[in-house]
């Protein structure tokens, strides 16, 4: 049945590959040996330059998946299946295990809904343990903070929206559900330290919360609204420290917010664009990337007005976060809807454009394309570099 795709190629005028007529045999060689079909197994731990790229498969949204790529070689290593409205993969800090929150229906796009977290070893990418969770996982544009892991990899948090808001907690060690905890009015879990996290609330405020030793969620302090109604903070902030997140608003204001110990404090506010650059805004599905070893922030920027917060970036603007200063502007050969950077000391910068099926691997200093990995489905959303902890230990 797989010949089907060739037909469309034919329509484009490509000629079908036919076997060349046999040539006279060369001098006698030993014949090829019979082969045994094997199945590939990978390293046990993700090296720093492996990267997961997520495909939401928008037109067939029940069939999302992640592709595992070796960015150094450009090799396609394997596939991790997702489910309906695939968001991404939570990788354990040691880079050995991938956890995939998935939603399935008994009859494809309808019927009985089941939500599960499936555990995969990176080494074999085989579906292993499965934990059933409340069938309430948010179905939305993919956001990393809907499926965070605690820093030690012990608990996986899953954001629910029905439209009641709650958090399901999975014990990733015991591989069982801890429970579901209501978080009325607030959503997303931005991790701040070993057990704490921040949530964003509809009125522009932030809500502190923390897991106890058993994984139960307890709500803490709430701030007053920190963002205006006319220029809300994006739901795609980036973590820049153990307890610190950098938020950008639709218009490009920056707020650096620390949630250490359940206390929420605004540490800095500045603007991505200068006064003479007011047409430039951040945008895309994954507009921000932070490289901790060098303190650099990479932002996808485009020219546009209100309502363009999902427009892809035409340039990447690079900032020294500590200095709150831009240090470079990188013009992109192709727009990008997502940007990410590997966490090691010799990093690679990654970009993709939704609809392109292509991951670009770049020099983070110049933005120059080192290689492109093509044929990655059609609807690439989030890019997930190997976790930092794995980075430290591997290679």
């Amino acid at each position, binding site marked *: 049945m797989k010949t089907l795709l060739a037909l469309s190629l034919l329509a484009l005028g490509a000629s079908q590959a036919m076997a060349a007529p046999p040539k006279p045999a060369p001098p006698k060689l030993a014949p090829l040996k019979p082969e045994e079909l094997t199945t590939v197994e990978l390293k046990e731990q993700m090296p720093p330059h492996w990267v997961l790229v997520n495909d939401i498969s928008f037109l067939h949204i029940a069939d999302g998946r992640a592709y595992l790529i070796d960015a150094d070689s450009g090799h396609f290593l394997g596939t991790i299946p997702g489910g309906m409205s695939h968001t991404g993969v939570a990788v354990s800090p040691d880079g050995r295990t991938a956890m995939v929150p998935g939603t399935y229906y008994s009859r494809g*796009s309808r019927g009985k809904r089941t939500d599960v977290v499936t555990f995969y070893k990176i080494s074999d990418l085989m579906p292993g343990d499965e934990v059933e969770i409340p069938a309430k996982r*948010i179905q*939305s544009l993919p956001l990393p903070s809907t499926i965070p892991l605690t820093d030690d990899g012990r608990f996986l948090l899953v954001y629910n929206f*029905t439209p009641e808001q709650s958090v399901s907690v999975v014990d990733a060690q015991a591989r069982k559900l801890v429970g579901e905890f209501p978080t009325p009015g607030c959503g997303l879990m931005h991790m701040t330290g070993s057990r704490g996290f921040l949530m964003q609330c509809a*009125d522009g405020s932030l809500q502190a919360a923390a897991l106890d030793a058993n994984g139960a969620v307890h709500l803490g302090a709430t701030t007053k609204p920190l963002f205006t109604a006319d220029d*809300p903070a994006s*739901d795609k902030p980036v973590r820049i420290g153990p307890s610190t997140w950098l938020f950008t608003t639709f218009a490009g204001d920056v707020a650096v917010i620390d949630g250490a110990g359940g206390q929420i404090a605004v540490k800095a506010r500045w603007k991505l664009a200068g006064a003479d650059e007011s047409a430039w805004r951040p945008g895309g599905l994954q507009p921000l990337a932070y490289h901790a070893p060098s303190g650099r922030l990479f932002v996808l920027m485009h020219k546009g007005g209100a309502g363009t917060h999902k427009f892809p970036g035409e340039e990447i603007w690079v900032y020294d976060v500590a200095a709150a200063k831009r240090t470079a502007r990188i013009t992109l050969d192709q727009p990008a809807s997502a940007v990410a950077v590997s966490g090691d000391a010799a990093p690679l910068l990654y970009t993709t454009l939704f609809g392109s099926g292509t991951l670009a691997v770049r020099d983070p200093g110049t933005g120059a394309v080192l290689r492109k990995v093509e044929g990655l489905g059609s609807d690439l959303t989030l890019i997930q570099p190997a976790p930092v902890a794995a980075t430290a230990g591997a290679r």
Partner: protein
Amino acid sequence: MRRLDRAAEYLARSAARGTSRRGFIGRLGAFLTVSGAATLLPVARARAERAPNPVQVQEQGDPMSCEYWRYCAVDGFLCSCCGGSASSCPPGTEPSPITWVGTCRNPVDGRNYIISYNDCCGKAACGRCNCSRDEGATPTYQPTTSNDLDWCLGTQAGVAYHCSTSVVLGPAD
């Protein structure tokens, strides 16, 4: 009606948080838009042919075009191209009883209208007439004005998104 009860609960809690900006009226409109939806459920309907709702006489433009005025904040596949219309779901789909709202200006009468962007649900994406206009859309943590959410969550089984409608609720002014 359970979902609507929950929506009401949610609204009450949200209100208790002291939010009173543009979101709240939007929310109320949004979450209660199709309060009669239960009576529209296909299982309860009579079996007469029911054509797609036409547009109203005071309108101009092509409801199969993304430029059509009602679509100022729509985000998805136009039901007009999928067997429905701007205010009708295609056969065999279920309208989302709760959703998000936007405000669009009708160029013919110059008035602003509240538009409810109900999803039609239960079959995988229609895939025709993709139309994405984010005017006034907010992040997911401000759900009542967010088009990044799959609003099919309000249907009977929380089933798949098929296409988007743009229903006139009334004048905004």
